[in-house]
């Protein structure tokens, strides 16, 4: 076939499929404006931003913005905190939904099963603004947890002014909010397991624990590894909604995270160039982590994401 007729054929295929190109066009344009145009703005990280001169007109300064933020103590504190919080959330919050899914799956009565699910999914659908509002209501001096702590001899216990207590609160409240919903994906995987495997194991005399380790866990492993990769890829970011609504100056040293620091330092204080540099730095670290995690899971014989 000659080149010309190939092009003609391609043209015909495209024309035949015009409907598909037309319906995807709005998304392509909007994505260009709201995702690709901001990428162009990244050059601000290497510039001394001047409102009058605009992004392109502002003078280049090389890595000066990075140097500047690397010298700010709170940047490293928030960086470290982000990492600690996410690791703790991973250690506590990653296995929890798997366990919960197995627990819910063991309930055979349909009504109880779906009621438990309805209740435990609920917190996921509420914002951190609401959840922190409720947390304050529990912890304030007119709340039941404060009362409980007082009865336990921890008088005037103020979780919200003690760094370590606040750190525990951050991890536990996340556990409270997301464990239920996190279980749904594993439940879907559990339902897909062939019941004959369990019957065969029962006949061989395997008990519940044995069945969990020999059948359940291996069967949901692909789901587990993909979820793990996704979690690791976000280790150095996130948590803005939770932390911003929960924290105060007294506990900045323990629970201020990169995203909240970026908001205060970059947006609220108007340091646009330095803020862009922080954003770029974090994005690059997360991509690296994601690729490493993906590779690691594959090396361990699991299924990667790509």
């Amino acid at each position: 076939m000659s080149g010309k007729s190939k092009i003609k054929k391609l043209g015909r295929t495209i024309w035949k499929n015009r409907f598909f190109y037309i319906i995807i066009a709005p998304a392509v344009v909007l994505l260009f404006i709201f995702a690709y145009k901001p990428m162009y703005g990244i050059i601000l990280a290497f510039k001394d931003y001047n409102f009058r001169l605009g992004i392109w007109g502002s003078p280049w300064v090389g890595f000066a913005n990075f140097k500047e933020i690397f010298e700010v103590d709170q940047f490293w504190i928030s960086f470290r905190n982000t990492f600690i919080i996410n690791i703790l959330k991973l250690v506590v919050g990653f296995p929890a939904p798997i366990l919960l899914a197995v627990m819910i799956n063991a309930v055979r009565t349909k009504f109880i099963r779906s009621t438990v699910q309805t209740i435990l999914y609920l917190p996921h659908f509420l914002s951190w603004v609401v959840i922190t509002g409720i947390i304050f209501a529990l912890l304030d001096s007119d709340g039941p947890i404060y009362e409980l702590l007082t009865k336990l001899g921890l008088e005037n216990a103020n979780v919200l002014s003690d760094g370590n207590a606040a750190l525990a609160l951050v991890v536990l409240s996340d556990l409270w909010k997301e464990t239920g919903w996190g279980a749904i994906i594993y439940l879907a995987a559990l339902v897909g397991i062939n019941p004959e495997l369990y019957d065969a194991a029962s006949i061989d005399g395997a008990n519940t624990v044995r069945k969990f380790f020999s059948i359940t866990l291996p069967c949901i492993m692909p789901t587990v590894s993909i979820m793990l990769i996704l979690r690791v890829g976000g280790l150095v970011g996130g948590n803005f909604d939770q932390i911003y609504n929960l924290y105060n100056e007294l506990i900045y040293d323990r629970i201020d995270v990169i995203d909240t620091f970026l908001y205060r330092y970059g947006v609220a204080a108007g340091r646009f160039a330095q803020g862009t540099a922080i954003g770029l730095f974090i994005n690059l670290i997360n991509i690296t982590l994601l690729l490493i995690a993906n590779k690691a899971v594959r090396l361990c014989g699991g299924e990667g994401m790509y």
Partner: protein
Amino acid sequence: MKNFRIKTHGMKRGPLDWTLFILNGVSLAVMCLLVVYPFWMIVVKSMMSDLDIIQNKLALWPQAFQFSGYVAIFTDSVYNFGRAFFNSVLITVIDTVYQLAITVCTAYTLSRKNLPGKKFLLFYFVFTMYFGGGLIPYYLVIRDLGLRNKLAVMIIPSFLSVFNMLIIRSYFVGFPKDLEEAARIDGAGNAQIFLRIVLPLSGAILATIALFIAVGQWNNWYTAMLYITDLDKRPLAYALQVIIDKSRGSNDTIGGQVQVIGKSIQFAAIVVTIVPVMIVYPFFQKHFVKGVMIGSLKD
């Protein structure tokens, strides 16, 4: 057959299995209580006077019902909750329709086999999941478009979540081809197949994604915090955030001072914000599983 299987399960239970079975039930019951109680407490306290709230710490039942908190948030123009509620309903309804339409169209095109340029288009979308300009370049784009302080800022930029799009796409990829072939033989075009055959058979997945979009938008205070200063244009979630933030004298509120806002007002504001979600979401529950099949995201 099914009954038979359950029976054998029961018969084979040893002492360890029974212990685990009971432990399991008790643990699940405790977890449910831990989730339900805080909501119960907030609802009960929202119907109490500020004085009663201090005395009745556990708040299992109010000493006396009174609704001054609810009256205050809807009548006092400082809180402006009526307007905020209206704004939120408007934003949520419009954005759910707008975002769902764009998401479905994108997913459908990207689910086509042998479409010229599909590989590039797929990359064009997925790339933005992993890399982006970051908060400040995005902020500048919004500012330069003149979207600040307009309700449209809550809608126009939230046109698609690539994640949701991939979920719907994987559903379309698995859509039976014979149905489409049959319709084509009957003379149906691409548009007719999409509108008359594919969409009507995708109800469950579309309902789930619509719920995700709606809840996300209902809870969205962040966009409003960044771009909306006008009292009249606040959505509910942000109006609530401001009430809680101000009552605690947050250091981040620009020009903010500690304001004494009664507990009953705060709690009423929380309840008004969560009740619509609590009412709507259980109806979608049976479809959820289809919406979270991340395992099938891969090609």
